[in-house]
């Protein structure tokens, strides 16, 4: 197996045993990027020189037996919505095409402290708004499993880069499914941690009450390793949770005997793609064989696609319309040229700088927050959000983990849904409710469809129960291996 195809936990051992050097490993990923990224377009920026210099430094420190961090020498790609000091952070947008961040996001600083090697920034739907990675100013990313298909989104570049062995690890962000859905479409593992478990400082905001950074990797053990590195309280993010971070690797392989896995009938409506439904039911059955107990639960609101999608998009678009007011051509980013007064400059800058989907969401969000409509739309959505949370709380009184599909289908074709925004939003029916409730969720590749494309399984847990969630995901992964 080529170095770039291995997992982080395998490579960490081989690096420690001096079988390979960080330089050889980084070079292997860079060679792979050279070979395939012209087609896949998973990366917006690649820092080959910086990554190799960093690798040499790690190798030197190892040669001197200096202490090294837990991810020492492991290449990682970052979704281009995370600020990295001195490098470009574009958010897949023209308006930030040339933006150089003056500081590191906390998650990035934690990766540096763990001695991981940042190799580049990955493509995404503009400002994380999309489910296909087709809304990028830098062109679409293709699915490495089938280049006629989308990789999912919005963290499509990160998922594709891991699936194509262009990197060992990646970070994405998940506001309504943007880590889990592309992980599912590309056949890799993607985790959305509990809201507040990972600092959002230096993550460019889309919908602040929903956004969360999450690992994307080739297997569950790597996801646990990467979560360990980035989880924790950050005084710079007032919404980060100040509780100790458990050891996510400690109980990972302890098995699932006696754990209760809940299935909600609402997640299996008539008309659901038969392969997707069969995969989820088969996953549940294999977990039962491995010692879990299956229970039926009800999610009358949180399992209802229309209620979840309506609530999610109203809240996300409302928050986005407020967050994106900062792009005014004054402090950073694109500014329209010409002899314009201030108001004209704002209008032209934003109209030139944002893509179609971003403008659509700003418009809907502004409308839903405006006088006269606030109660009918935004406040109503916040109330339904309460009902969604309560549904999950109640379900978790009778089970430890919930199991569902990640997405209603396998990866769709490029261009297939771009003319119909609402159809595109429906990709998030299984994932968006999870952000609304703030609970952790993971996508694990489980089966392949008749089209040869991966089908992912989503597992959910109560707040801060990532250790249990990872343990279940690890067991599920064993049944597919």
């Amino acid at each position, binding site marked *: 197996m080529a170095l770039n195809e291995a997992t982080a936990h395998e490579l960490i051992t081989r690096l420690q045993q001096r079988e390979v050097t960080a330089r050889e490993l980084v070079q292997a990923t860079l060679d792979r990027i050279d070979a395939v990224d012209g087609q896949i377009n998973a990366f917006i920026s690649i820092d080959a020189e910086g990554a190799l210099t960093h690798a040499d430094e790690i190798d030197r420190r190892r040669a001197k037996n200096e202490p090294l961090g837990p991810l020492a020498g492991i290449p990682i790609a970052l979704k281009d919505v995370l600020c990295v000091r001195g490098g470009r952070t574009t958010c897949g947008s023209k308006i930030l095409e040339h933006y150089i961040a003056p500081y590191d996001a906390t998650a990035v600083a934690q990766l540096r402290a763990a001695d991981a090697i940042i190799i580049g920034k990955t493509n995404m739907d503009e400002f994380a708004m999309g489910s296909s990675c087709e809304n990028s100013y830098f062109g679409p990313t293709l699915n490495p499993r089938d280049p006629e298909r989308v990789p999912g989104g919005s963290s499509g570049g990160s998922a594709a880069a891991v699936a194509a062995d262009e990197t060992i690890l990646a970070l994405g962000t998940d506001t309504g499914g943007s880590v889990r859905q592309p992980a599912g479409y590309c056949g890799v593992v993607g985790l959305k941690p509990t809201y507040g478990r990972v600092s959002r400082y230096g993550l460019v905001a889309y919908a602040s009450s929903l956004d969360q950074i999450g690992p994307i990797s080739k297997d569950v053990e790597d996801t646990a390793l990467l979560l360990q590195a980035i989880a924790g309280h950050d005084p710079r993010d007032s919404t980060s949770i100040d509780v100790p971070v458990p050891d996510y690797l400690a109980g990972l392989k302890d098995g699932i005997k006696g754990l209760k896995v809940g299935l909600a009938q609402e997640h299996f409506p008539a008309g659901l793609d038969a392969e997707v439904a069969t995969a989820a039911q088969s996953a549940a059955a294999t977990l039962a064989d491995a010692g879990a107990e299956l229970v039926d639960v009800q999610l009358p609101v949180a399992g209802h696609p229309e209620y979840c999608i*309506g609530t999610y998009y109203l809240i996300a678009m409302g928050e986005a319309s407020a967050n994106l007011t900062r792009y005014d051509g004054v402090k950073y980013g694109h500014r329209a040229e010409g002899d314009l007064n201030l108001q004209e400059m704002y209008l032209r800058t934003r109209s030139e700088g944002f893509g179609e989907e971003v*403008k659509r969401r700003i418009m809907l969000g502004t409308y839903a927050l405006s006088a006269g409509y606030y109660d009918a739309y935004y406040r109503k959505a916040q109330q339904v959000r309460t009902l969604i949370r309560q549904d999950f709380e109640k379900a978790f009184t009778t089970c430890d983990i919930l199991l569902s599909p990640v997405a209603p289908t396998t990866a769709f074709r490029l261009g297939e849904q771009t003319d119909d925004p609402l159809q595109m939003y429906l990709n998030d029916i299984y994932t968006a409710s999870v952000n609304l409730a703030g609970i952790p969720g993971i996508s694990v590749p489980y089966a392949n469809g008749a089209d040869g494309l991966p089908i992912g399984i989503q597992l959910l847990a109560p707040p801060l129960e990532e250790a249990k969630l990872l343990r279940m995901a690890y067991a599920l992964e064993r049944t597919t291996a």
Partner: protein
Amino acid sequence: MAVTVEEVRGVAALARLSFSPADEERLTGELNRILQYMDRLNELDTEGVEPTSHVLPLANAFRPDEVDPSPAVADILAAAPQRQESYFKVPRIID
């Protein structure tokens, strides 16, 4: 409640966005279709349900009132489209 082209124009002004007449027409149709979908939420009785603005039981996150180092002014200004001395420079505000 159907959204009109005039309302779309008004919302665009609030959002500091401008659209061509053809785009205004298209957006009006899209917004109506999406909002019609959102109207399904009205099937749910939310009388007396507290709205959730945030999932965490957090109130204010206080810290000691101590001065920390701030980012260098030059670093911040480096990203500005236009600057003068230590200021962001903008076009004339009053015609």
